[in-house]
Structure formats: structure tokens, C-alpha cells
């Protein structure tokens, strides 16, 4: 399997452990990733807030660069998925608008073509379930997660709005994390926050709202006995992990909960050590997760 790969900004900035673990995991799963080094930020919904056309053109450029490779495109960030799907919906909806946007790309000699070779942009989570296949994934597991209790945390942009994110064709996309956790030998923790907002988008604007959201979800997962959370979104990771100590203060709780990136959870089951996956770089300690798996050496 070979895919054009858009790692996003944050996986190469504040969460390099995500980018690194994705590379290891892709290699072991025999997924070849062709990195889109020239591509630009998706705008994360913020640029669209300033100028919708600008956000649409920036993402049309990324899609055009991916289409040049002749491959499908993969991202590892719920926010990239949502922001890019929003722009793609507008680009695909109107040929005159698309032509107008492509004008801005002509200088670089590239073009976004609707539906070219069945072009799709998918988060790693969707690729795993829909294209790679859970049976194939299971066959690669060398260290089943020994009923590690994992709470899924999706990130808003990959679950809403449903009409824009392919839910008509794939209605269970908001259940994939649960399926992956089970395929890896973990146990799904059901708690209130799995599909709620981490609060990250307003951390610099409405800090209390933001931290209260993150703190509430971590708290709920702890109450349900989670060993850790897992998320396909590095921005959620920033609020749930990096901001966790502040968030827990807001909800008056003195505990912590490890928050793993999706490729890290997959990587553990594929036999990588926590340190190889950069889990020592997290703010909320991941030691408990490592201890839980200590009795299950990678075969």
C-alpha cells in the first residue's frame, strides 16, 4: 500500500512523537508514505474564519500536490481531516468556483481535479479500517494489549458534520477507534467525552471553557477506569496532555491519565517499546501504560 502523506503542522512541531511513531508504524505495516513536503497548513478552520477562499485555495494546493503523485492521500490529524474536507466539499460542489481556485494554482503548474483517479483524503484511522483492514492489522499484532483499558477520543473534526465526512458511505466512522482498540487486544472504555470537544480551538480565547472541557473528559475517563486515552488528533492531544495539569486544576482533581496518539497505540501492539514511540515526551505520565504491558513482551 502506497499513499501520499500529509503529516500536518503540529505532528512536526509540538508533537514530534506522533510523526515519529507514524513513520515506524507505517514501515511495519508495509504502508509506503510519500511525504508531501511542499504542502501547506490546512488552516485548521482559523484561516477560513479570515477568508474562506484563502483556506479553500491552500487546501486545493495540497490536494493538487497529492494528485500529482497519483496516490490517495492520508493525514494523521482530525483537524486537518475536517478543515480539508470542508474545503473539498466546496471545491467539488461548484465547477466555476473550482476553476477560479485553480487559477491561483496555475503559476505553480498544478491543478485540483475533482474525483481524479478516485482521489480521497483519509485520516490514518479511516485508512486502517477501510483500506488496510482490521484482520490484516490483527495479523501484525505481536504484543496484544492485554485488555489495556483504552478510552477513545475522536476529535470533533473527524465526527462532525456527518454530511461532509463521508458518513453516508461509511456510517460507522465514529466507531472505528473502538474497533481498532479491540483489534489490538485492548478493552474499550465507554465514557461521556469520546466524541466531545477537547477545547483546544479556544485555549487562547476562552481559557476556562477550554480547560474545563479537557478536564471534564479526562475526569470522566478516569471514573470509568481508563488506563489511557487514544486520539487521532494532535490538537486534542495538546489540550488533553500538554494542558492536562492545568485542566485538572480547573476540575479540582489531582490525578493524571496518559493520552496516546493513535500510531503509538498501534505501535505498542506491533511490538515497539514506549520509548521508541516517544511516549516519554508526554506531559501526563505514560508509565502506567508501560507497566501494564510489561508482562506481555513483544514476541
Amino acid at each position: 500500500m502506497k499513499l501520499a502523506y500529509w503529516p500536518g503542522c503540529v505532528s512536526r512541531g509540538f508533537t514530534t512523537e506522533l510523526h515519529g511513531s507514524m513513520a515506524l508504524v507505517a514501515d511495519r505495516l508495509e504502508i509506503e508514505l510519500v511525504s508531501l513536503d511542499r504542502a501547506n497548513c490546512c488552516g485548521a478552520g482559523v484561516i477560513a474564519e479570515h477568508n474562506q477562499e484563502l483556506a479553500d485555495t491552500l487546501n486545493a494546493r495540497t490536494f493538487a500536490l497529492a494528485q500529482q503523485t497519483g496516490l490517495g492521500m492520508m493525514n494523521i490529524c482530525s483537524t486537518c481531516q475536517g478543515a480539508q474536507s470542508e474545503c473539498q466539499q466546496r471545491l467539488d460542489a461548484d465547477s466555476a468556483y473550482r476553476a477560479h481556485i485553480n487559477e491561483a494554482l496555475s503559476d505553480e503548474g498544478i491543478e485540483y481535479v475533482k474525483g481524479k483517479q478516485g482521489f480521497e483524503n483519509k485520516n490514518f484511522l479511516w485508512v486502517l479500517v477501510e483500506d488496510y483492514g482490521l484482520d490484516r492489522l490483527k495479523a501484525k499484532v505481536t504484543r496484544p494489549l492485554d485488555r489495556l483499558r483504552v478510552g477513545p477520543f475522536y476529535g470533533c473534526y473527524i465526527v462532525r458534520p456527518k454530511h461532509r465526512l463521508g458518513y453516508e458511505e461509511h456510517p460507522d466512522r465514529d466507531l472505528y477507534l473502538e474497533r481498532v482498540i479491540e483489534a489490538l487486544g485492548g478493552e474499550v472504555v465507554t465514557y461521556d467525552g469520546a466524541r466531545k470537544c477537547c477545547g483546544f480551538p479556544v485555549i487562547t480565547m476562552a481559557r476556562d471553557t477550554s480547560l474545563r472541557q479537557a478536564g471534564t473528559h479526562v475526569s470522566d475517563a478516569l471514573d470509568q477506569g481508563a488506563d489511557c486515552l487514544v486520539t487521532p488528533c494532535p490538537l486534542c492531544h495538546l489540550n488533553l496532555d500538554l494542558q492536562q495539569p492545568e485542566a485538572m486544576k480547573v476540575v479540582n482533581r489531582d490525578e493524571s491519565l496518559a493520552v496516546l496518539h493513535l500510531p503509538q497505540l498501534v505501535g505498542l501492539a506491533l511490538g515497539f517499546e514506549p520509548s521508541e514511540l516517544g511516549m516519554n515526551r508526554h506531559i501526563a505520565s505514560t508509565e502506567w501504560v508501560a507497566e501494564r504491558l510489561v508482562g506481555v513482551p513483544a514476541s
Partner: protein
Amino acid sequence: MEQATASTESTTQSYTLKVRRFKPEEGEGPYWQEFEVELDPTLSVLDGLLQARDREDGSLSVRCSCRAAICGSCGVKINGNSTLACLTQIGEAHEGANRLDGGSKPIVVEPMGNMPVVKDLVTDMESTHWEKVRRVTPWLLDDGDPPERERIVPPESMVDITQTIACIQCGACVSSCLSMEVDPDFIGPAALAKAYRFVGDPRDVESRERLYDLAQDPHGIYDCTHCFSCVDACPKGVAPMDQIMRLRRAAGDEEGIDDANNGRRHEKAFTKIIEKKGTLDEALLLQESYAAGVKGKLMPKPAAIKGLVGSLPTAVRGMRTGKMRSLPKLIPGIHPKLPGDAQRHVKGIYAHAEEHHTELNLYITGEEDVEPEPDEEELSQPEASSGPKENE
């Protein structure tokens, strides 16, 4: 006629509704009660509730009127999703309740969220909906001189607010709002969508004042966490969050309102960084969001300094654990640019988009039903319809 009756009878099925009951007059807390109902899967959850009331318990309270998604009275939560009971087919609700394991779990019906419950499924919308709607001055503020006949505006200038006019005040968006869940003072999606209805109206002469008010309020437009819950919940396609983003665009960009919440600063900083660097320099974003141009011209506002100081413990922790170990990640501005001439092309895109500033609203224009473009047809491969392509 006979045929219709026969077909209705043959498709009638049994469903279980698990309803969250609350009878304040009995002095007890809320409790769950299950009702068995029998009806066609294409009939609504509201039909099911009314059948349960008629056949089993006349005290079961639910607010409803038109039964056709027009009046907006029957807002509830069905399997956790805020919606109208009359707009949700009971067969689909049953499938929704059992999508995990295909079993026969009951359909869960609760009163709307973020609101006090009056009785059973009836909520008090006064404090969390109507009061907030009144908060945004939901009427036209014109120039005061009544025209001789009517105020004439070109039809296209009203198109912009068509989407917000579709609101039926059902409260489903308020019920679903994840910001309001943690901040009950948030003005909220319904009221803010209503605000855009007047901000976008060419006859309104107080648009700037409205925007200033909503941008400065700590529970205003910058308190929305951009979670899309209201977009999915709205039964009329109003997409309240989209309207909030348009309010932000109008306040920050068009009116240049420098709000105390750092909303405009954050958006400007983000946009500027991508123009310069192509990808996000988070350290620079943090610095610029709180204290734009601290190196030179502008002085940050007191609120911004407070915000910057507030974020320091987080940054220090990040350094300690090695999360931000590499130096370039900590120093604003050292972040690498895109390779080769890519950055020049990104700048070109900025120039083009800033010149045109096109805003495409699919609610108004719809999605065109186009023939495939010529090159699509010849490029399309049989396997092309399924996901990212495999090239092995």
C-alpha cells in the same frame, strides 16, 4: 384504501422507548421508564411517545404541535443526539440505538440538554434560550426615519441571511452545545445565529455595535469551540456555527474590532504565519496571539499579558519533559519555511484570495449536479471509487 390499510398493518413493529421521566410534583428525582409501542418504522419517535401517552400513561409530558418539523416544539435527545422527535423515524432511531451490536436495546429519549427540566421531556427554554436570544437585540435597528412605503433592498443582499432566517427556535443546537455544557453563560448557537441575521441585514444600521458587543463579551463569539455539534443537531440546516464564524469574520476582518478575548489577534497571527512559513510555527502563534508585535510596535493589552503569563506553566512543563526539547520549537520565528519555491507559491495564493475574497455558501447555491469533467472520465479506474489507491 384497503390496500393502504393492509400495508400499514403488515409493517407495524414493536419498539421500546426508554424515557427519562421527571415529575417535580412528586418530589422525587428523575427516573427511567420503558414503554412498548407498536407502529410503522417510518412513523416518528414523537408518534411513539404520543402512543405511549395515549395507551399507557396520560401523565407523560412532551411538548408538540405541528408534527411536521415546522413549529420547533418537540426538541428532545434521542440516543444522545439533540433533534426533533417528529423528524426522527422510529425505525432509524431503533437502528441507531443498536448500531454497536445489532441487538434490541431500547430507544433512549431524554429532555434537551443545557436546560432545566420542567417535567419529563418538557424543558424550560426561558433562561437558556429566549433570554439569550433577547440578549442579541433580535430586531432590526434601522436609521429611525420610517420610509414612505417600504425599505427597498436588492434581493441578492438578503440572500446572505436566508440561512439564519430558516431557524425555527427549537433549541436543538442549544441542547447540543459543548461550550454551553461547560460555560452556561455562553450566548450560544441559536442566539448568535440570530445575531448574524441582523448583522448581515443591509437595513440594519447598528451592525458594527452589535459586532463590538459580541466580540468583547467573554461569552460571545470567541467562546464557541468550533465543535460542529450545532451543525449536526439543527433540523433546518441553519448551521449556527457557520454563522458564528461569519460573525468572527465580520468583526475581526471587516470591522477590525480588536477584542479583549484575543480572537482577532489569534486569527490574524495564524493567517500571517502561514503566509510567511507555509506551515504553523506554534511558538510564534502563541507569542503573536497574546502579544502581537511585542518586539516592536504594538503593546499587548493587559488581558493578553494575563493570557501569556497563564500559558507559561504549560510551556515550562513542556520543556521539562522534552516535549518541546528541540530549541527551534521554543523560539518564535526559527520554524523552517517550505522547501524551494513553494513558499512563493503560497504567497501567490494569498494575493489571489485576498483580492477576490469569494465566499461560497452551499446552503444557498446548492451542490451542482455536473457531468464528470472530460479528463475525469478517461482517468477513472474501476478501483478508483474505493479509498486511497493501493499501488503495490
